[in-house]
């Protein structure tokens, strides 16, 4: 896979290096700004709230009856 990409990149070794870096930056940006933020909402890694079982990870949280006055 990587060999195939390397062969296809133009511009000799310097050009290929530059192209690789650009591709790498693109892939990292895609992961960090799109894939990971999406993935983490699907994983239970960040649950810190107490919640009713039927309503876990929804935007509502336990609403204990409002306090007195």
């Amino acid at each position: 896979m990587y060999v195939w990409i390397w062969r296809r990149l133009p511009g000799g070794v310097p050009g290929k290096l530059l192209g690789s870096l650009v591709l790498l930056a693109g892939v990292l940006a895609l992961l960090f700004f799109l894939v990971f933020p999406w993935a983490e909402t699907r994983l239970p890694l960040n649950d810190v709230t107490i919640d009713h079982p039927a309503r876990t990870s929804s935007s509502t949280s336990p609403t204990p009856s409002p306090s007195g006055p």
Partner: protein
Amino acid sequence: MTSTVAAPSRAASATRGDGWRTAARGLGQLLITAGVVILLFVAYELWFTGYYTEQQQHQLTNQIQQQWQGSGPDISSLAPDKVPLGSGVAVLYIPRFGRHYHFVVVEGTGFNDLQKGPGHYPGTALPGQVGNFAVAGHRTTYLHPFNKIATLRDHDVIVLETKTRWLTYTIENVPGTNIPWREIVAPTDVAVAYPVPDQPDAAKAPTRKLLTFTSCHPEYSARERYVIHAVLTESLPKSAGTFPTALLTPPPK
């Protein structure tokens, strides 16, 4: 030049072996790539998410400062469910977590709210009100406001700054109940955030001003919840220019 002659025969004999080799190499590269991506995800969760929270906290700090300078009412005089989701509720100081520790508590405990900072459970009491000011916060990721929650001890203090007051809550067993100052509970145990913790009976009107923190437990897991209870022990008007002594003196070792 000789290669052009030799090429067809070599290619013919080696096609099968080369195919397997290419497939094996491709699979190997794919697996290594998957491993690297998973490591990157861990790095993203643990460190990169903090940048977002830092940015949001900066904005929330500006917002709450403006709010305090404006002519609006102090948050303690509002009904508990009248605060817009995502807005700042109060500034939180915990001397045990260091002199410079402070976070703006945000309204709401949804995923998006908790990305911004520790979140106030909507509908629970507001700072200084009778009832239970309940707050959830990340123990890891998103600047992990409650990372050191397990270092809190009995009689440590938690300070909240609102528009007009400094509110000091002291961690202790909940008076009038048999609830300890620290609990580890199931994620579904909403009773810890009741106006009087573990008293679902609505007729039992709260009389005390409490504070409750929830975070995940064990660290890096979401299997249980770590819970801290505290009681309001001091309420100072900010106008007097006084600071809670808890913020001026380091916590006992």
